[in-house]
């Protein structure tokens, strides 16, 4: 396992390096337009534009520019998202400050949503699996179909319109200027975002658990367990679920990694000041340092999520051994 971890960590670094190069090329070097011109203002003189270009380091070679941004990705004090390179072109706020401030919002959204979709998806999948083709199963799969079909942005607006605007039983979007994150949670501002973000995942997980559990319950060792006189509940929970949920763990790790990089649509619809909202703003305004920072953060969460999942898998499934 130790050697496996070392190998995977090195691979993680390689993946992040490739992503950083691609991100740099796609967002920094390839797009048309001159960020210095935009930064300097619409009526800047040639000299002013040149001053800005010098100030932003845009006259440096591609390798120097990349090196400056890459240095800021080293996760060590004094290097990580250094203000020298990661300073917003748009609002002159350090990228690190924005990310640190917004990350708790995104983590709250992702974790809460994850809890909700696990609490919904897994039970629905289990019940559907143990009562296949029953009314409960059909209802569960209808829910699954709805959940994966309904776009998040549509769901979000419908929820806001019905539960906030019409019924007045849920708070509106966004955080009030006078409330912090905890106060926002306690006032229920994340309830609808959690439900909205979780529905599509819950639907997918329900289908996955149902399919895996049905397949597992037809295995020989399940028949043996029943023959030994174990209760059906024990057979399902102790023997069936353990195998059926293993792929769920894999998916969960990847889904969490993706969400931690920013649930863009949900954050936009519900005006939650998280990483996703920051990513959209950075892209629209061509704020290169912010784009680099957010992209690399998202990539980091995904690759680390993958690594964690693979390690956990080995503990869940004794047949899996890493060398």
């Amino acid at each position, binding site marked *: 396992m130790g050697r496996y971890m070392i190998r995977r960590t090195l691979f993680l670094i390689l993946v992040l390096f490739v992503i950083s190069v691609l991100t740099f090329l796609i967002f920094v070097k390839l797009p048309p337009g001159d960020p210095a011109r935009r930064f300097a203002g619409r009526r800047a*003189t040639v000299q*002013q534009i040149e001053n800005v270009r010098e100030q932003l380091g845009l006259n440096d070679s591609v390798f120097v520019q990349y090196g400056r941004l890459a240095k800021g990705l080293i996760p060590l004090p004094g290097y990580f998202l250094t203000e020298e390179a990661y*300073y917003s072109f748009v609002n002159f*706020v350090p990228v690190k400050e924005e990310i640190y401030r917004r990350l708790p919002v995104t983590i709250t959204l992702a974790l809460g949503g994850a809890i909700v979709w696990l609490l919904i998806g897994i039970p629905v999948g289990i019940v559907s699996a143990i009562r296949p083709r029953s009314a409960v199963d059909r209802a569960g799969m209808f829910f699954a179909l709805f959940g994966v079909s309904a776009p998040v942005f549509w769901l979000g607006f419908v929820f806001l319109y019905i539960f906030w605007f019409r019924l007045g039983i849920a708070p509106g979007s966004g955080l009030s200027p006078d409330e912090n994150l905890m106060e926002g949670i306690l006032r229920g501002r994340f309830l609808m975002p959690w439900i909205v973000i979780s529905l599509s995942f819950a639907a997918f997980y329900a289908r996955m658990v149902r399919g895996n559990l049905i397949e597992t319950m037809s295995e020989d060792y399940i028949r043996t367990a029943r023959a030994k006189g174990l209760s059906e509940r024990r057979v399902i929970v102790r023997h069936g679920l353990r195998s059926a949920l293993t792929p769920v763990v894999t998916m969960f790790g990847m889904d969490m990694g993706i969400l931690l990089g920013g649930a863009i649509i949900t954050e936009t619809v519900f*005006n939650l*000041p998280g990483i996703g909202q920051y990513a959209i703003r950075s892209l629209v305004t061509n704020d290169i340092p912010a784009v680099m920072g957010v992209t690399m953060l998202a990539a980091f969460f995904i690759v680390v999520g993958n690594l964690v999942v693979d390690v956990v898998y080995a503990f869940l499934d004794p047949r899996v051994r890493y060398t």
Partner: protein
Amino acid sequence: MRKHLKLIALAGVIALAAAACGGGETGDTDDGDQADGVQKGGTLRLNLLSDVISAFDPQKEYYSVTWEFYRCCLLRTLMSYNGMSTEEGGTELRPDLATALPEVSDDGLTWTFSIREGVMYAPPFEDTEIVAQDFVRALERTADPDAGAGGYGFYYSVIDGLDDFGAGEADSISGLNAVDDHTLEVTLNRPAGDFGFRMAMHATAPIPDGAADGHVQDYGRFLVASGPYMFEGSENMDFSAPPGDQEPVSGYVPGQSITMVRNPSWSNDIDDLRPANVDRIEITIGGTEDDNALKVDSGELDMQFDGVAPPDQVQKYQTDPQLEDQLFVNPSDAIRYLTINLAMPPFDDIHVRKAINLALDKDSMRRIRGGPTQGELAGHIMVNSLQNNLLADYDPYETPNGQGDIEAAQAEMAQSVYDTDGDGVCDDPVCQNIPTNTDEADPYPDQAALIQQNFEPLGLTLDIRQFERGTMYDRVNDPNTQTALGLAPGWGKDYLNGSTFGEPLFGSVSIGPDACCNYSLVGASAEQLADFGYDATEVPSVDDKIAECDETTGDAQFQCWAELDQELMENVVPWVPYLFDNYVRTVSERVENYTFDQFAGLPALDHIALAGGGAEG
């Protein structure tokens, strides 16, 4: 017993009498103060779809939304406005931190401002008086190429020595002289009749000594206020700490929220321009227009400040008698137009340019954008506030109901060299596939289709290419692209003077890919035209008239800019103007005393009051 009953009854009568008489004029001791029939107090709740563009740095913010926040609330300047519409005197320059309008020397080169005494900054500089040197400091920061990047420092190049200071060739700006604490003398390198307007812009707002030190890029997050409001938490800023260790003000969270509270150093006694009715202004940033419209409907939000009110909400408010008082429509001082390249055939012929002015169905162009609430049909170039409404009824190419007049257009075309048989239809190949660009976003493609339809009877066909907005502007601005028509540009004033239209749009210095924004090439020299690859060797110029108007002062400026407008429309014809944009806004039912600040083209937040002083029902 009877005696006790009488005493109790008497006590009850006294209590009733006290209740009836107590509470003052409002009848409720908890209500806010009243001034001019308007209730003071409460929290105004706004939303911005997008954050301000440069984190409130006054030397960098080139954005009308921020300018309104400065004018209404955060920053006072030597000169300013009353935050009202053109009809209510909103275009008149008024003294703010100055005691009176400036004294101008006979040659127009020396402007002397006398500064109010005893006006203090907001916390944490509440013990610091605003003095002349503070304005010098602001202008030095404006001249600094790092601190002023992205701003409008070019407006102050007219100050003697400012550019030398900015280039590092001088230790101070020679044209700025703080004669004493309350007298500022400014020497210009050429006469500029609009200089008073430039001193009303917030890049000139005073900065106390030490506040901006070490904050070349982020002073906005450490902004020291001088207006009726300040950022919440300003009193906690510690400028004694090294700049890198200072904590930015808590009332502005970039990308998330803005909270402004009353500046304890300010009062109505020292400010004639701002009533400052509400106690607090809370602004959330982000969200969507539709969601914010629902918030306004429900009263959770008082107003969405930027962006566009959704058309269905506007229609609902227009048609509901209970809501129509919550809908406000004002001219935003922006114009939409088609820009014509004077050097490109067939538009090098003035008759063709006049013909398309007559052919365009401006009413339908407006309908595509949402109908009459979107603005007034434009018959000339400069927005009316810049000429104090002198040309409000002027339209040399007026057509019935603004729907175009193809017969009149063809009559004009018949006079063109490109219509050899005089039938009103161009018969020269240059009229086919005319290079044209437009914006790819709605509603411009629909408008482009209409324009093509309108011009076809004149024998003009357009080769229309759609671009992302920024690219569209870059291309129409670059003469090398040889774009004959631009269908999607717009322009708004920077301040209430025609100089913000004149030179930038029609001055020869504003031509070229590294300049901005004379798309029509008015005034281009023969050399420039050759460099850009045009066969034309001459185009009309209005440089002399622009220079004349730039130097004119007082009310005569309005007349001069009106004359330039007429010259352009009748003898140059560089545009087809079609719409003076409106600012359409819906507000919650508790908003009172809504006024429109003609300077920023936005609601005047210092005038707005809340019903009942903002007390929740």
